[in-house]
């Protein structure tokens, strides 16, 4: 009886999801062109799809560098299996610019205006964590911004300038929901 039940649960052969508005369909398997079951979303974004704006620092869920948006919510792409992203909508740092005009997201522009980065390696993750916050809370208090970014690691200490950059656009109504 048990065996009969299990028979109905085959490993999936394909996975499809949206990345920055574009549908991605990938074969699952162990060939070089395929996605392996053990591949993380971070790996697939960077190595298979060439979206290297997503950075991997700890590859262990502790630093926030690989943060992307899944259906608008901040998640860690290094702790997410690609095969479990079926039907989801992923936004990476490459997807924040207006696809028609190429205009930067106001949050990106504000990071530039406030020099809210030093080495820049953690910056994509920071921007996406802030973006997720503004999606849900368009006019956050500074404490809410700190909380939303509390899982993002930065060793240069860009924190203070990042807070200014996020607060400068918070509540401006300029930031579109992604």
């Amino acid at each position: 009886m048990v065996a009969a039940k299990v028979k109905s649960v085959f490993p999936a052969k394909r996975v499809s999801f949206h990345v920055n508005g574009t549908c991605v369909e990938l074969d699952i398997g162990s060939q070089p062109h395929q996605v392996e079951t053990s591949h993380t979303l971070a790996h697939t974004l960077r190595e298979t799809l060439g979206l290297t704006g997503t950075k991997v620092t700890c590859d262990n869920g502790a630093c926030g560098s690989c943060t992307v948006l899944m259906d608008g919510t901040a998640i860690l792409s290094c702790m997410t299996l690609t095969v479990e992203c079926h039907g989801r909508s992923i936004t990476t740092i490459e997807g924040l610019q207006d696809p028609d005009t190429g205009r930067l997201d106001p949050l990106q522009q504000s990071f530039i205006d406030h020099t809210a980065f030093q080495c820049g390696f953690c910056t994509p993750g920071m921007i996406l964590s802030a973006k997720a916050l503004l999606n849900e809370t368009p006019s956050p208090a500074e404490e809410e911004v700190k909380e939303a970014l509390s899982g993002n690691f930065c060793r240069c200490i860009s924190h203070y300038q990042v807070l200014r950059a996020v607060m400068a656009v918070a509540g401006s109504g300029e930031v579109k929901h992604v």
Partner: protein
Amino acid sequence: MRPFTHINARTIRQAVSALAKFDGNARLNAGGTDLFGILKDEFLPAYPEAIVNIKTVTGLDYIREDKGLLRIGALTRLADIAKSPLLRERYGALAETAHAVASPQIRNVATLAGNLCQDVRCCYYRYPHHIGGPIACARKGNGPCLAVKGDNRNHAVMGGRRCFAACPSDTAVALTLYDAQLLAVGPTAERRIAVRDFYTPLGNQLNNDEMVKEIQIPVITEPAQQSFLKFTLRKPIDFAIVSVAALVATKDGICAEARIALGAVAPGAVRAVTAEEFLRGRAINDETAAQAGVLALADARPLSRNAYKIQIAQTLVARALLGQDSATVVNVSHAYDPTELSTFHRCSSPASQGYATVVDSEHR
């Protein structure tokens, strides 16, 4: 990560059957935030053959009161528990514990059952494979516990046996406070396990073909003061060094009901029964709260480097009972009150003082 077979379970039965089929060599995956750390670091003797995704099981994400029980689906995300109006109003300690876990990104995917079933954080147990190989230990069944003579600053001060790793789950502390039970589903039957009995020094009560379906909490109807204090070196990210949850109901200034649960001091979350009994019928004030703190840790027997946890736990018990915030017990009045978090003062300065411009170097 090394390859594995991946299965999306559509039902609990499918998930449990898959566990049975792989006979202990499959692992369930919900949020994945602990599991993938384990797989990436390859510190366990065996690597699973299969990962069974249970996020594809529908209907396990809920918070509802029903027949005297608050029922929370196993796959309810910590972020949803932290912001649930129902929980915030009447099960505040649980909402606080969920909010205290890790980081926003983790809470967005981590589930309640996953938080309860996560593996311990012992630095020897988790030492990664890729830096010279994993460290053998009692919990893995292949060696002695090195923490006993080594760095045990984060280990259990009570209840350890062979293994002294402390329970890392924050939500277990609130659930123990509430006398909550897990509903576990196996291939043939369901059973209930009290959260306070769930953990053993070497693991937990769950069989490797069982899956947690629901967490059940006896409904709290009487108004009670609840608090959860988590002591860490930093606010987010960190696992507790010590945590305490307390629930106090008073009538005419006298304690009618007191419950205290301790986290990160033992292999499981622990109820401080003696301290609870002591408080019932007494007024809770600085003195009785401090006494309760001492009683709560009376059974503690620290290792070489973790006695400091006892002092912290005693303090947290007293503060939780008194309803004090862990961070700011008293505000120290001070002249400086920053209006800006950071400032940059560019100061003008007297003109060049005319030092010599020649390089003035000589050996002496």
